[in-house]
């Protein structure tokens, strides 16, 4: 019983940190620039596919190889995000207020359909990054190796993100723009440049989250949409402009979803996530408006 609880907790925690990363991807861009980035899942899927293609060309790589390959894949996704930011997303940033929010939804929705279609055409299969991390037995509980690897890697990543937002000039500047775009501009921080950097950063985070996700589950081009919707829900539960809130929400929801899934079946675990988001929106709508 206790062993099973521990297994669930570790798997839930792993799922939780992945959800946190996806949620962060939404929070950073929406909190900062009011664009609800429906492309986020696409970035994750592209990174996973790039990873699997690179692994295919370089067979026999161990875990260290995967880390290097994942970094290359994430860099590719970041580059794509930069190109999109400089072109289409710039047109969205020209608008202000509610117009920007609406245009952001529709433009990123259009782009996500476009990329999803392209992914289906050129890479229709499903990807599962099996790196064969062995399970560990602790106190009679058999803990999934990939879950532990994900938790460890995510802990390092969260540390880096924390350092970026609290101890670097750019990170603090970013938080200033989140607080008040005009105020930041008056302090000499160019919002548009910060928005571009954060857009690229959020795509990279989604890329990493995608690779983590693919260690535990299959990813297909069709996954991109559900990954985006998971990310939005986590971001909302955490409060869309709170970085730490999103991380906490992701972890809590990941554990709840895993437990609900084990007890009542997988479809109810998804319902739990969406229901939590609806409840938060109904009781605290001002959080995101």
């Amino acid at each position, binding site marked *: 019983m206790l062993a099973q609880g521990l297994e669930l907790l570790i798997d839930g925690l792993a799922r939780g940190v992945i959800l946190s990363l996806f949620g962060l991807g939404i929070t950073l861009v929406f909190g900062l620039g009011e664009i*609800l980035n429906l492309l986020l899942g696409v970035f994750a899927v592209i990174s996973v596919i790039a990873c699997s293609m690179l692994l295919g060309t370089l067979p026999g790589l161990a875990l260290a190889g995967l880390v290097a390959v994942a970094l290359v894949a994430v860099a590719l996704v970041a580059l794509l995000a930069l190109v999109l930011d400089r072109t289409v997303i710039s047109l969205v940033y020209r608008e202000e207020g*509610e117009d920007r929010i609406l245009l952001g939804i529709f*433009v990123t929705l*259009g782009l996500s359909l476009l990329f999803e279609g392209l992914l289906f055409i050129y890479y229709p299969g499903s990807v599962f990054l099996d790196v064969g991390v062995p399970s560990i037995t602790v106190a009679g509980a058999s803990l999934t190796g990939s879950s532990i690897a994900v938790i460890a890697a995510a802990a390092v990543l969260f540390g880096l993100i924390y350092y970026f937002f609290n101890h670097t000039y750019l990170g603090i500047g970013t938080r200033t723009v989140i607080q008040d775009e005009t105020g930041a501009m008056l302090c000499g921080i160019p919002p548009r440049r910060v928005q571009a950097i954060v857009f690229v950063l959020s795509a990279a985070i989604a890329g990493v989250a995608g690779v983590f996700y693919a260690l535990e589950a299959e990813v297909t081009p069709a996954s991109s949409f559900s990954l985006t*919707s998971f990310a939005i829900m986590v971001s909302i539960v955490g409060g869309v402009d709170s970085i730490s809130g999103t991380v906490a929400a992701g972890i809590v929801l990941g554990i709840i979803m895993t437990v609900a899934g084990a007890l009542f079946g997988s479809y109810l675990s998804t319902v739990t996530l969406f*229901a939590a988001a609806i409840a938060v*929106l*109904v009781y605290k709508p001002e959080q*995101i408006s």
Partner: protein
Amino acid sequence: MNANNTLSSIRGQLPIIAVFAALVLVPPLFFDPSTTYLSRRFITVMIFAIFAMALNIIFGETDQLILFMGGIAAVGTYTTVLTAEYFAVSPWLTLFVGAFVAGVFGGLVCYVAARRQFTVIVLAIVTFAFQMIIMEVIVGLRDITGGTTGIPFRDLELPAVESLTGLGPFAVQFYVLVGVFAVVFALYTWLTNSKYGLAFAAIRQDEFAARATGIDVIRLKVFAGFISTFIIGFVGPFYAQTTGIVIPGLFSFNGVDVLVLIILVLGGLRSRLGPLVGAAIVIYLDNLLSQFGQWRTVAFGLLLTVLFIYFQDGILPMAKSLYEERGLRDRLTGLRSGE
């Protein structure tokens, strides 16, 4: 003076009369009993035109963006089909039950949204989450809904009318949908020309000012929400009828909401004939692109992006303003009078 007024008002209505006349002529001209494919496409155009008209009422008039049209259509359809099965009656009777349940659900969401003063984005996300939940629940409740295997459904036919008029089942279904479209069209025209239209405009301009002038904003938003979702729930079963099976995949976000949004923006928000024009173009494109497999998704994605960035006002209103601004109208009248 009066005669002149009547004449000019009739002249103003001419395009609408022409459009409905053309719709009535569609089955004899295009419906071929040997292939059902084309007939089905025309029926789909009508269904999506009605969906877009419903979105026009809720989003166009009261600025409430809903992203669960597929889910609402599913609620209406499953309620209609399941209650018809349970009580062993014709789905023509339970059609209104399904629509009513969909309407109450939509109205309730709008009530909470208006009460808690949701912004456009909050309502959009809430309804989007509902869309996901509805889909998950339908798939999960396999014993009742048949899960992803679905429920065969073709009972919205009128054999008596078919034998009486000698029309095929597709022609009858098309005329029924033209009738529904006409009712929704009349309702929308009446709504926008009545005091409701004025109140909707006030809400769109400035909700707080509208409230200050004594407009019951919550009641109006719920009213618009109920009507829209009632219409969507009502048309849902006809949509399922075209495929002959009720499956959750039919009502997905990409399958319904994305198409309806493109249709409405293409046709022009708050335009009365826009939904029909938009639906005709989009369903035609869909038909054209379906042979290219996934390129269809790519093309729709591109279309949605370009439309929203450059043609937010819609093709019909844009063509109209071009026609008026560039003096085309004057030149055409000049041509007619031989000047």
